[in-house]
């Protein structure tokens, strides 16, 4: 079953769980596998944490716009914020041989998704597009 939905949350860390619940409810409705839903929950949480902490500097009261499209071939999750634009060029993958307390968020996104794309061209924040192909799709 195809699903298309949107959600707006406030820029608070305690709103991230609300977004996870929304994602789970819509992806279960679309018949997505538990394994893929678990991956998406993690990726969404990492992305929203970065938006709240870095784009909005932990300041509540700003919108974060989420869009989810699930069809037979892929799941596409889009996250738009109006805060400080993300500098994708500054990203450095963590040194996995020397565990650190932070720096795994974007790394996990790249490992769990098929496409991770940051767009700052609008001039009003960042649009992050995350795509996961559906290996559970009956068409594949």
């Amino acid at each position, binding site marked *: 079953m195809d699903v298309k939905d949107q959600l707006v949350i406030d820029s608070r*860390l305690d709103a*991230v769980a609300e977004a*996870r619940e929304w994602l789970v409810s819509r992806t279960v409705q679309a018949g997505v596998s538990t394994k893929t839903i678990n*991956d998406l929950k993690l990726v969404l949480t990492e992305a929203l944490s970065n938006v*709240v902490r870095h784009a909005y500097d932990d300041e509540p009261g700003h919108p974060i716009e989420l869009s989810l499209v699930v069809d037979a071939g892929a799941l596409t999750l889009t996250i738009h914020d109006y805060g400080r634009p993300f500098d994708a060029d500054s990203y450095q993958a963590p040194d*996995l041989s020397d*565990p650190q307390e932070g720096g795994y968020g974007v790394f996990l996104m790249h*490992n769990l998704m098929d496409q991770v794309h940051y767009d700052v061209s609008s001039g009003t924040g960042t649009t992050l597009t995350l795509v996961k192909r559906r290996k559970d799709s009956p068409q594949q």
Partner: protein
Amino acid sequence: MEYKTRQEGSVTVIELSGEIDVSCAPQLKELLQGLIDEGKNQLLVNLADVPFMDSSGLGIFINAFKRNKQTGGAIKFASPQDALRKVFSLTQTDKVFSIFDSVEDGLSSF
């Protein structure tokens, strides 16, 4: 996230339940730091009832691991669900953490 602790000889078993994400990470950090500050640095974390953990939770476990290593202590993990095993595996922290299939196995390793 909720937690209970119990003492098994020299080992403090921490029973965590619920999702561990960035919003409850400070609570988890306070719990682990408090135990270590009390001298309870032989820790076994039961993850059986934790269906989800993000990188902020992982970072707090790494912090406790490093602190305990400096003082001759340890933090080990028992019974992670598949979603958590994947986080440990992707970040390769499963190569430095001691992870057991059961609390009993974890306890017998101390």
